[in-house]
């Protein structure tokens, strides 16, 4: 049993990473088409990672720098395991919505640790900005999460997904507002413009990644691929019913749910890319103001709306 469970977990995380790497290539293609360019092939992400992992030389900045990557990678894998993919829950328990919130901070902290160990001043600025960004987008995001938890009366993501079988959350009026807020928070989590402040290549030489090269950068790209899948899956699980369309437990249902999950996270990712290509970058204090003033206000409105719906 245990061996089977471990095998399934390994399979799922590997698939998630593959999907993420594929998405990086597809994303570059979409951005290129928006710019009226041809763009790289969709499998470019795999080529890039293969190149980085086969580099002949490699520089390490001490053991913290090496281990921090593993730390982030573990954090993102754990997050993926706690999120139902296509309705299949690998790990779940009561209250795992809070756990996921904590787990989402681990990869960012690991990343910060590695960047700090590299000793580059640009990396230090980037880490500072990344932490401020985290502080800003988490407030509106947590408020929307609380709204969901009040409405469905549970704090487990798997149960939130199950209760959306009849009707996706986004079809209920207050959650349209909440989904819009969460989508902008997602933009910040994925570090896409207008919130690509921590890794701005032209301002601070790609920030935390400034000193990463060779195999370390390859590992970092795999981690990035994992974050794309984790964050988009989180959004799909919370608002789009986790992509579950059939629930009779057959093999066909399993495959169909998986396919719908794939399409939905792709759509969410495409939306975030389209926002990314059409906006310039905020300054860090503007981003902070945007999240804590407007987004948080909208999130509060949806929270109160949900509360009134529940008690009436």
């Amino acid at each position, binding site marked *: 049993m245990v061996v089977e469970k471990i095998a399934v977990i390994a399979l799922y995380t590997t698939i998630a990473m593959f999907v993420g790497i594929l998405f990086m290539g597809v994303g570059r293609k979409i951005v290129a088409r928006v710019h009226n360019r*041809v*763009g790289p*092939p969709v499998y470019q992400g795999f080529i890039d990672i*293969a190149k980085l992992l086969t580099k*002949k030389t490699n520089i390490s900045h001490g053991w913290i720098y090496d281990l921090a990557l593993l730390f982030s990678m573990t954090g993102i894998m754990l997050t993926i395991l706690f999120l139902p993919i296509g309705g299949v829950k690998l790990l779940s328990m009561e209250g795992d919505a809070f756990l996921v919130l904590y787990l989402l901070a681990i990869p960012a902290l690991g990343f910060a640790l590695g960047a700090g160990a590299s000793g580059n001043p640009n990396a230090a600025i980037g880490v500072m900005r990344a932490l401020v960004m985290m502080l800003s987008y988490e407030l509106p995001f947590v408020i929307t999460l609380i709204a969901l938890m009040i409405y469905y009366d549970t704090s487990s993501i798997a149960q939130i997904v199950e209760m959306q079988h009849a009707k996706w959350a986004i079809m209920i009026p207050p959650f349209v507002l909440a989904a819009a807020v969460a989508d902008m928070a997602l933009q910040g989590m994925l570090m896409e413009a207008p919130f690509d402040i921590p890794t701005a290549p032209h301002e601070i030489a790609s920030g935390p990644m400034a000193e990463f090269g060779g195999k370390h950068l390859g590992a970092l790209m795999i981690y990035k691929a994992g974050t794309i899948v984790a964050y988009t899956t989180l959004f799909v699980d919370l608002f789009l019913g986790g992509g579950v369309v059939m629930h009779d437990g057959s093999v066909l249902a399993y495959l169909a749910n998986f396919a719908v999950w794939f399409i939905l996270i792709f759509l969410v990712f495409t939306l975030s890319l389209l926002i990314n290509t059409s906006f310039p970058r905020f300054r860090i204090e503007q981003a902070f103001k945007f999240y804590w003033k407007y987004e948080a206000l909208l999130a509060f409105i949806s929270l109160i709306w949900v509360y009134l719906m529940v008690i009436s």
Partner: protein
Amino acid sequence: MGLFDGDIMKYEDWNKISRIASRKSLWMVHFCTGCGAIELPPVMTSRYDMERFGMGPMATPRQADVLLITGYLTVKTLKRVVNVYEQMQSPKYVISFGSCPINGGMYWDSYNTVKRLDRYLPVDVYVGGCMPRPEGVMNAFLELMKLIDEGKARGWEKYQKYYEQYKRNQKMAFNFEREKDEGA
């Protein structure tokens, strides 16, 4: 390299995979030295679009594979270029633009530019012209990919092998500048 010393995969096969991957994903450093930098925006944007071949600008030397020397090099810039080159992770390649790095070009009797770049850094591909047009630049990129595929772009190995000589040449150039400064 123990894993690939013939136990699982032959070292040559491993090298071949590495070459195929690095040919299709050349990242270049954003470091522009002379007039040639102005020819790069058309190459990057929708007209010539070098991202078709997986090429793209990278922010720091650690992440990059290709160093572009876009035109004349003053001795002061050479110091920085050598720093940048040594920070890059091998396999790494150098492309030089225009006639200035080949033989001095129109700065051949200038007091503070280096005349032959390959005395100081190993160059893999030269693009002629003053300035090369974007077509020429594209052609150079394709040429570099061909050389990598055939395993002939070995500038970085040359730099490791003849490190002393390269260092001596670089030092001569730097010393020359210092003496000039002190004399003035």
